[in-house]
């Protein structure tokens, strides 16, 4: 079993080397002057439709982003809990089903609360 995970290690190397090779080729082309490398202040400036960039990019983001991330984490954990249940369902049969039904129902209360509080709406 660990051998399989070892193969995943090989794949991490592939995943790193694919973009690395592309970037190295690009870099080498720069060395032989096929690829231009002539940076100047205007080119390296932040793009903002041609006008000068004003202030930092770190503008005030509204809290909606945070709420969605929170909702995601809570429901994600719930679903992850259900994965071992899904695998064990065949041994435990109807008891497991009722158990999980209760689990989902309790979170359903939270879902309805979130809905009523308009947490799912982007404002």
């Amino acid at each position, binding site marked *: 079993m660990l051998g399989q995970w070892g*193969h995943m290690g090989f794949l991490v190397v592939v995943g790193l080397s694919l973009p690395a090779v592309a970037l190295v080729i690009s870099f080498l082309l720069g060395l032989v002057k096929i690829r231009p490398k002539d940076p100047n202040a205007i080119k390296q400036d*932040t793009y903002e439709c041609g006008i000068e960039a004003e202030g930092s990019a770190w503008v005030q983001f509204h809290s909606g982003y945070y709420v969605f991330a929170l909702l995601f984490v809570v429901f994600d954990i719930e679903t992850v809990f259900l994965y071992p249940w899904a695998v064990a369902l065949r041994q435990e049969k109807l008891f497991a089903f009722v158990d999980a039904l209760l689990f989902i129902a309790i979170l359903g209360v939270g879902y309805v609360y979130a809905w009523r509080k308009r947490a799912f709406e982007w404002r």
Partner: protein
Amino acid sequence: MNVLANWWDLRSLANPVNGLLGWLRDKGWDEIAYIVSGSIGAAAIGLFLGVAMLALIWVERRVIARIQIRRGPNRVGPQGLLQPVADAIKLMQKESLTPRLGDKWVFWLAPLLLFIPTVLTLGVVPFGDGMTVADLNVGVLFIIAVGSVMPLVVFMAGWSSNNKYSLLGAMRTIAMVLSYELPAVISLLSVVVLTGSMQLGEIINFQKDHNTWNVFLLPLPFAIYLIASLAEIGRSPYDIAEAESEIVAGYHTEYSGMKFGLFYAVELANALIIGGLFAVFFFGGWWTYYLDVIIPSWVLFFVKMLLGYWLFVWARGTVPRLRIDQSLKFSWQFLVPMGLLNVVLVAFEVALWYQLDAPGIILAPFAVINWLLTAGLIVGYVRLLKLEHTQTPRRLTLTEDVGIVTHVPAPSAAGYSAAGGSPA
């Protein structure tokens, strides 16, 4: 995997590899066999990705052109087949700029890490009978977990650019990817409940043993997974990251040259992989109702993979982009509850099946029930939410044809002054 298969039986490319590995093990070189098997798998996936990305650029551009009634690239090479190569060369020649105010380290790191989730996902995909690099017994969860790291890379790219469009694009993309990851996870949960395993090989075996494709039993998870995966890989109609009219190119606005090319390539590769996952989860993977006896299993899998990819290109060519508030609401208020209801339904069926110790043929009535309930559920839920259904016109209607739009006179300067002069 058939261990007794001859090494020259190319219906599964695993056979020659196993032949080689068996020979190495006979010699007592277990370590060498392990390294060789890992290297072959890794090299195969690297090669596959490289070739696939070049091919997909061509497919994508030609198909989109067809949909938009254009010809598409057809000059470079026969039928424009060499166009992707030309594209790659062009990208490599381009100057690569780094924004002065950005964070240089993170800016470079993001495109480097970009491919790891993609490649790792391919590691658990069975490309054919026995052709899996590592058939983990937590395969489904592995795909989800590895895919969930993608938003981080997006955030790194967007934040390090120090560009308002980039950061805003990254934040929006992440909010949407998170919201659609949940329906995807829930719909795959249905698949796991039905097949009783998270191992991708076992999921295919289940479909093979019961002579069915999962899509017959799980129509709703299929639809949810289709929509959710479209959003997760950020393709239109969910390409708000690249909403050119609003936020330029989203989180990769500041990337140029080869680094931009990498962002472009990984999107195509992800779309292809999702096509492959469709095949595994819902269309039997390499198994195709006895066709796999004649045709090599990996050919069948590639065909299914490409059909899935083609579906994505089709969606991109025809469906208009959704606004972010619409797409988020749709995910949370429609896909998530529907997916959970379906999990409960399938779990009940499976529990009943095993409680009664019924034969596998019980799946047939389940399929009928599931299709009917799916249709009923969607209709009922839409009624419940009182969603408005607007009929889109079958053909373009000119205002003269409509006949009810009367001429609205433009407000004249006199009208303004009159309004200004006499406040109501």
